[in-house]
């Protein structure tokens, strides 16, 4: 009895899943190449940013085309603190999230007054405008050429010969786990419920005592903090921060990953992150394989990328995670439905079907 109740606590459930996955992934990094480990760090940076946007857009109903800018804030914070101040890595990562959260607070205060296309427009301006600041303050932020970022040196007990990319993969996996556990806790709490209530009906939400604007600002702050941490890892992985790395394309890619992965689900953020790293590479190598002339093949890869996105959304309107859930349900009903129990599955199905967001990413941490 006691252990069953213990396991039902959200934190315990989230932690168990996270610890298992972290251990498995730590072991996996040992057999992967250094380049693969670099890709893991890259995926991690996207997963964290996508998870944050998924909370903002999927659960709170606010769109942002400016999350690349928050990533930039986190990335530049890391570049300035890690390289020039030589502060401990954990502190640098935390402060990167905090500075991005501060940027999110300012943006969120404005965003709470804007809806739909107007919010999209305002955040779009952020994505375009903020990287330009680096050129304005060239002496501190390095202008067009940006700032170098030292890869974090592996902690000394791992030995001098430890692969820095493998260490970076560890750090970023840990960051993903911590972020997703915290977000999973948040979305299963009353705050997650309030986020969704505001998304669905603001009038009814305010009558139930929710400060709608405050709730929206909170979502923006949490979401921007995630993007900032994602940006920090992105900076560590790529070894450089410059405005060209944080263009509008990045902001749109994050939104793409959010939608394709499964809006409002944390597990979907993982699919989204993986897709954002591997899909462009895959489409590029596939189109290069046709041995066409350069102009055609470089456009073909973009075309393939687009086709895959369209097909995924047509096949799984609720994103890849929606598809995974659908498959899970289909499997369960195939194996569980005996002749007698078909009625009960039928009754249970509708509840599950239309609550992909309601039961949210809450349960699944990774």
């Amino acid at each position, binding site marked *: 009895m006691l252990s069953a109740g213990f396991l039902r*606590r*959200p*934190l315990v459930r*989230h932690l168990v899943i996270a610890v298992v996955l972290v251990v498995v992934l730590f072991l996996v990094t040992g057999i992967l190449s250094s380049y693969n480990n670099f890709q893991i760090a890259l995926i991690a940076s996207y997963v964290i940013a996508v998870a944050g946007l998924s909370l903002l857009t999927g659960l709170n109903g606010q769109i942002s085309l400016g999350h690349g800018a928050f990533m930039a804030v986190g990335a530049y914070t890391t570049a300035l603190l890690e390289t020039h101040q030589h502060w401990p890595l954990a502190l640098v990562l935390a402060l990167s999230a905090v500075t991005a959260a501060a940027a999110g607070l300012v943006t969120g205060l404005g965003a709470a007054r804007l809806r739909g296309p107007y919010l999209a427009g305002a955040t779009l301006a952020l994505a375009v405008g903020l990287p330009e600041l680096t050129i304005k303050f060239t002496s501190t932020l390095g202008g067009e050429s940006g700032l170098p970022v030292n890869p974090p040196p592996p902690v000394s007990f791992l030995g001098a010969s430890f692969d820095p990319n493998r260490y970076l993969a560890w750090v970023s996996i840990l960051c993903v786990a911590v972020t997703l*556990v*915290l977000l999973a*806790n*948040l979305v299963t*709490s*009353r*705050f997650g*419920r*309030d986020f*969704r*209530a505001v*998304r*669905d*009906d603001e*009038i*009814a*939400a*305010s*009558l*139930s*005592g*929710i*400060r*709608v604007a405050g709730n929206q600002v*909170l979502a923006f702050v949490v979401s921007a903090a995630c993007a900032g941490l994602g940006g920090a890892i992105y900076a560590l992985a790529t070894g450089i921060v410059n405005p060209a790395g944080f263009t509008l394309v990045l902001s749109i890619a994050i939104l793409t990953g959010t939608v394709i992965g499964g809006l409002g689900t944390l597990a979907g953020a993982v699919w989204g992150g993986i897709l954002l790293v591997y899909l462009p590479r895959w489409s590029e190598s596939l189109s290069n394989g046709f041995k066409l002339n350069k102009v055609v093949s470089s456009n073909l890869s973009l075309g393939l990328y687009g086709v895959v996105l369209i097909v995924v959304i047509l096949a799984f309107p609720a994103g890849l995670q929606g598809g995974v859930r659908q498959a899970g349900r289909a499997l369960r009903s195939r194996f569980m439905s005996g002749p007698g129990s078909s009625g009960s599955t039928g009754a249970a199905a*509708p*509840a599950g079907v*239309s*609550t992909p*967001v*309601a039961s949210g990413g809450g349960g699944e941490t990774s």
Partner: protein
Amino acid sequence: MLKVTEATVRFGGLTALDSVSLSVDAGEVLGVIGPNGAGKTTLFNVICGFVRPNSGTIEMDGRRLARIRPHQLAGLGVARTLQGVGLWPGLTVLENVMVGLRHQARAGLVSALLGLPRSDRSEVDLRASALEAMERLGITDVAGRPATSLPYGIQKRVSLARALAGSPRLLLLDEPASGLSSAEMTEMGEIITGLAQDMAVMLVEHHMDLVMSVCHRITVLDFGRVIAAGSPAEVRDNPSVTAAYLGNAVDAPGASA
């Protein structure tokens, strides 16, 4: 408990409420009726802080509610249901009702983020109170269903359960019977009568049978003005009410006031 004194609201040149006064006390159901556009919903919006009156005052327990904001109502013990249902489609029935209880929640942001026991305990308590409110309205069996997948009559009950979950002292019901079958309407009437034991109820409704059977007093609005107020029987027999609803009799000059 609630006292509205000479509230006036103008939207541009249109006077939506013209010096409206009324009051409602615990244990009482006050009906607010009137033809479409009479200002009933505007009156609710003024009480809830969605619309600021150009003049006049609203008092709750003798305290003036100047510049009240909608989200502060729950804390004052005021709950309101919306025309239609106003449920959140992305939340289950249970979650809908739990949001209605949110001012009882004790866990802060940090304990929610970290999943501390304090947050869990608070959630367990909320769930228990929500189920209690749902039981009163007979909707516990649909607790896990998405709110808007249910038949309309049940959704109306859910929205009522959400409003009642926070144990309000004043309940504002905006057309609780619209879209209900006559059997459901009878049940709704019984529910409202039962509620008035513990709280003050203000009811905006078009269905006269319901209004006449559950209200202790009725205020009639027409073009933003109070044209009649009193017991159901008094209001029914008031010729100006009949005139407002049906128009003056044409072929019997002098028959109406």
